[in-house]
């Protein structure tokens, strides 16, 4: 006997043709799958009643694959074949992984360093895409059982899979590839904060600006979403890729160690087993303190000594005060990027298990001066939103589809003379976006221009990431500064960047589609943002110096050309004096003193005043010679 779900009025499907769709939260630590049944978003559980599937995949000696709790339990026992947190490697190449020493997996060096990385396991080489696909396969099987797909109720039309808002094109593509490998049709990739907002039904609410505060196990993300006429727009994202609930556990763990040291002077460093035991106890204490005033931590270490300490909620708040404060700094930055005041925030949504801690809720409430939304399970809210979106996308809802917009995580620009970056599309521009800017040639008779596309916030190309380089050739020979080259940057709704350059007088054009084989990691994004704030002063100096050098180079080249053409207009002494100034300026250009270089430019300008006047006279008389007065329109 079939099990039926309730449809919207007039939306009943024919038998065996139910339009089934799921939402998947493919997380770093845990993954979930949800669907809409009888109009209600529900997270699907496995046979044991677990909703969360640990994002851990173990490749077994007999060739089978184990995913979830069972794999997680064997993590320390079989680290090389048990892969956790594969999401951190999605769309990454080996050189993107900075801290390989702390990761127990055997990465495989590829001849092509930009190729996606691979891990050596007993099941052969595995890419993060394949590992994620194994997680998705497990969730898909769970969904098919729960939805009755195997019972012939209908077809699983597809899935909405969530990704962090800052995921770049390569990471999004990798996520899509993983879904395809798992045999899932991706209806859409949805930003995690947007999914959370959808779960709370903010898309049905009045228009307004909302903050999504997502403190997960190991990452913190804050996003600001603006809702206008049913359109979600990500105004800004920020975060800390190395801050999460695990850090709170670690603070308690350190506190326990201090307590042990206090009571035991001949304290020896703990072994791996004891460390894991204490970390588990610390996590349990943290969870207990969410609803209780104190937590008793009792356990026996491998050397036989007994640990028995009591942590009060007040002490816990004091211990972790710095961590809570650390989340507010990216929050402030995001607010600044979005150019918003606190009064403009209509609601705050809490996502991630770590937001259950009362001190986190309190800090968010104090900062935003309003009570955050917490009535949905913070672990499930993203998956629920994805399910609602998936349900709408397969047409089970009479309402119009939600249209979701995205932003560029970092500024996009190009290299100009002197290794400087000219930003064309600023960070946090909403997609799709197109911007154009005119550039010109630097030298007389320049017929080609090399355009380097860069991503980053810094002023110098060397400090940003190069995405692509292409050349515009066939520019007609003109004086420096006469050519008009319009460079257009365009980023489409999928986040793909294309750049075109067009010489306006001749309409010759060159074009490149930037599809990075890898993009910037979240760490790099954070790092680049941080360094741009920290080094603004140094950047300004570097920019001044580069500008002064470019300026000096341009005037030296102009004067040298003029001397070779019209050198006979001035006396030998005057010529020598000018050449001396050119020499002096060339030497100055090699120094790092922008002010001195600029002075040198002024001196050369001054030295050439008489020469310039003589040239002007000569060219006027050349133009006038051989013509009678009538033919000249004065």
């Amino acid at each position, binding site marked *: *006997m079939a099990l*039926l779900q*309730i449809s919207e009025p007039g*939306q009943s499907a024919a038998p065996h043709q139910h339009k089934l769709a799921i939402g998947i939260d493919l997380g770093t630590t845990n993954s979930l799958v949800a669907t809409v049944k009888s109009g209600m978003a529900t997270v699907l559980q496995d046979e044991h009643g677990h909703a969360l599937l640990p994002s851990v995949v173990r490749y077994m000696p007999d060739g089978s694959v184990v995913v979830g709790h069972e794999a997680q339990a064997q993590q320390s026992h079989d680290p090389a074949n048990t892969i956790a947190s594969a999401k951190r490697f999605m769309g990454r190449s080996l050189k993107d992984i900075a801290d390989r020493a702390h990761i127990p997996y055997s990465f495989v060096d590829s001849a092509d360093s930009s190729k996606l990385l691979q891990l050596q396991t007993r099941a052969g080489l595995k890419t993060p895409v394949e590992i994620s696909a194994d997680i998705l396969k497990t969730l898909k099987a769970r969904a098919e059982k729960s*939805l009755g797909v195997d019972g012939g109720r209908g077809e699983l039309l597809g899935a909405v899979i969530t990704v962090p808002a800052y995921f770049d094109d390569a990471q999004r593509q990798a996520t899509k590839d993983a879904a395809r490998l798992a045999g899932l049709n991706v209806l859409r990739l949805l930003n995690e904060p947007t999914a959370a907002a959808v779960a709370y039904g903010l898309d049905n609410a009045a228009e307004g600006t909302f903050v999504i505060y997502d403190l997960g196990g190991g990452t913190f993300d804050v996003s600001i979403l603006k809702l206008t006429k049913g359109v979600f727009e990500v105004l800004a994202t920020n975060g800390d890729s190395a801050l999460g609930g695990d850090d709170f556990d670690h603070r308690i763990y350190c506190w326990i160690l201090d307590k042990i040291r206090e009571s035991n002077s001949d304290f020896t460093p703990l072994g791996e087993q004891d460390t894991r035991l204490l970390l588990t106890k610390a996590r349990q204490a943290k969870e207990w303190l969410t609803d209780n005033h104190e937590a008793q931590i009792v356990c026996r270490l491998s050397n036989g000594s007994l640990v028995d300490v009591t942590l009060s909620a007040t002490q816990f708040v004091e211990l972790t005060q710095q961590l809570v404060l650390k989340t507010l700094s990216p929050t402030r930055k995001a607010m600044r990027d979005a150019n918003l005041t606190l009064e403009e925030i209509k609601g705050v949504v809490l996502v991630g298990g770590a937001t259950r801690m009362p001190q986190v809720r309190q800090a968010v409430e104090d900062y935003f001066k309003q009570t955050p939304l917490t009535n949905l399970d913070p672990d499930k809210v993203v998956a629920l939103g994805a399910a609602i979106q998936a349900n709408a996308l397969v047409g089970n809802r009479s309402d119009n589809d939600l249209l979701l917009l995205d932003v560029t995580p970092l500024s996009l620009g190009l290299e100009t003379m002197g290794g400087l970056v000219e930003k064309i599309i600023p960070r946090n521009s909403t997609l799709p976006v197109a911007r154009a800017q005119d550039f010109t040639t630097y030298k007389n008779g320049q017929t080609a221009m090399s355009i380097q596309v860069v991503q980053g916030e810094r002023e110098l190309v060397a400090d940003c990431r190069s995405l692509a380089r292409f050349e515009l050739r066939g520019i007609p020979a003109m004086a420096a500064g006469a050519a008009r080259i319009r460079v257009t940057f365009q980023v489409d709704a999928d986040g793909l960047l294309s750049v075109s350059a067009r010489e306006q007088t001749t309409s010759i054009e060159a074009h490149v589609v930037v599809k990075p084989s890898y993009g910037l990691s979240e760490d790099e994004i954070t790092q680049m943002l941080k360094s741009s704030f920290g080094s603004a002063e140094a950047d300004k100096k570097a920019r001044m110096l580069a500008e002064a050098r470019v300026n000096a180079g341009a005037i030296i080249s102009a004067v040298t050309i003029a001397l070779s053409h019209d050198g006979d207009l001035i006396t030998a002494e005057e010529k020598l004096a000018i050449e001396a100034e050119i020499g002096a300026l060339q030497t100055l250009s090699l120094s790092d003193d922008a002010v001195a270089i600029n002075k040198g430019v002024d001196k050369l300008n001054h030295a050439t005043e008489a020469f310039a006047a003589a040239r002007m006279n000569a060219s006027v008389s050349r133009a006038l010679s051989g013509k009678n007065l009538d033919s000249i329109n004065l």
Partner: protein
Amino acid sequence: MAITLTQTAADRVEKFLANRGKGIGLRLGVKTTGCSGMAYTLEFVDELNAEDTTFESHGVKVIVDPKSLVYIDGTELDFSKEGLNEGFKFNNPNVKDECGCGESFTV
């Protein structure tokens, strides 16, 4: 005769209606499609039609149009769980034969 809900089914319907935020009840019906001739439909109700019959069971309004009522009168709607799957089940005394899955039937 009448259409009834089991207590479990009624609790679920109430929950789903509350979650949906609107709707006056549950519509049961049949459509002439499917591998065995007819198929059940189960929908939320926002508007009543003039010819509809309304039953009430465990506090939930059950609405049926006259054409469907002929085929499903006496039905008890249950909510049950089979493995990981759960949903509503029609216990219809009029059914002579149904397809393997029970989604469509003949009378």
